[in-house]
């Protein structure tokens, strides 16, 4: 089998080196710096109006997990105290907070749902759990995988390709997912399928 031996005694399958390429699949020269990431605007709080709205929602919903009636009471007090200055609080009601949180899209995948239907050919004596339908909530796995691959925190802690790691005595070293036989064999199978 053709193997590429590099330093650190890491061996790669000859055509699976994880070398970066452009959109058309042409290999880039070694040490080409990555394209700059799209800049994120730090003052863009949408769908929140401003930082105060975002931090209020974060505090009440995520950190304190405050009840709906308590949120409404707090927002009422907030509005009363600001009324002297002809102003209102950051939100009208708990519903306003929840709707804003549901509309949040930055850095996340939206939740979707579908309903598992009852089987049309169900026998009459089917148990009760088979006779009702169920709601199933999910993230689009494609979007989640793209977000994971797009996360700059993982830079340098990511294997682009499977490898075989041998120590100085030639013994196999097992560490991360891509050092395993499973990923090695899967990669080569997929690669050969693409060639066919």
């Amino acid at each position, binding site marked *: 089998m053709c193997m590429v031996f590099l330093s650190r005694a890491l061996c790669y399958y000859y055509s699976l080196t994880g070398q970066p390429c452009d959109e058309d699949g042409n290999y880039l020269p070694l040490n080409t710096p990555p394209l700059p990431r799209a800049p994120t605007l730090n003052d863009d709080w949408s769908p929140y109006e401003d930082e105060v709205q975002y931090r209020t929602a974060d505090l009440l919903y995520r950190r304190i997990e405050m009840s709906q009636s308590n949120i409404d009471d707090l927002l009422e007090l907030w509005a009363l105290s600001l009324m002297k200055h002809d102003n209102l609080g950051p939100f009208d009601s708990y519903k306003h907070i929840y709707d804003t949180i549901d509309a949040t899209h930055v850095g996340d995948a939206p939740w979707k749902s579908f309903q598992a239907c009852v089987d049309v050919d169900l026998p009459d004596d089917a*148990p009760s759990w088979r006779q009702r339908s*169920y709601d199933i909530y999910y993230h689009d796995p494609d979007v989640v*995988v793209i977000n994971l691959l797009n996360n700059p925190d993982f830079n340098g802690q990511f294997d682009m390709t499977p490898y075989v790691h041998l120590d100085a005595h030639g013994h196999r070293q097992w560490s*991360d997912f*891509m050092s395993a036989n499973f990923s090695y064999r899967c990669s080569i199978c997929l690669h050969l399928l693409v060639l066919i």
Partner: protein
Amino acid sequence: MYVAVILGSDKTTVSIATGDTEYHPVYLSIGGLHNAVRHAHRNSLIPIAFLAIPKSRKIFPCNYFSC
């Protein structure tokens, strides 16, 4: 690049005080990440679905899928 998708699920009891709510979350991670990162709770293991939990009235059904 070959991206291995790792899926897992485990029953999680969310709240005992308000009615013993249980969920079966499905988690997703990708194979390229080093194990140290995946263990460090740095957004590398993402819940992607909540499965429905059918309830059976029989405590010990003779066959879960037929009775």
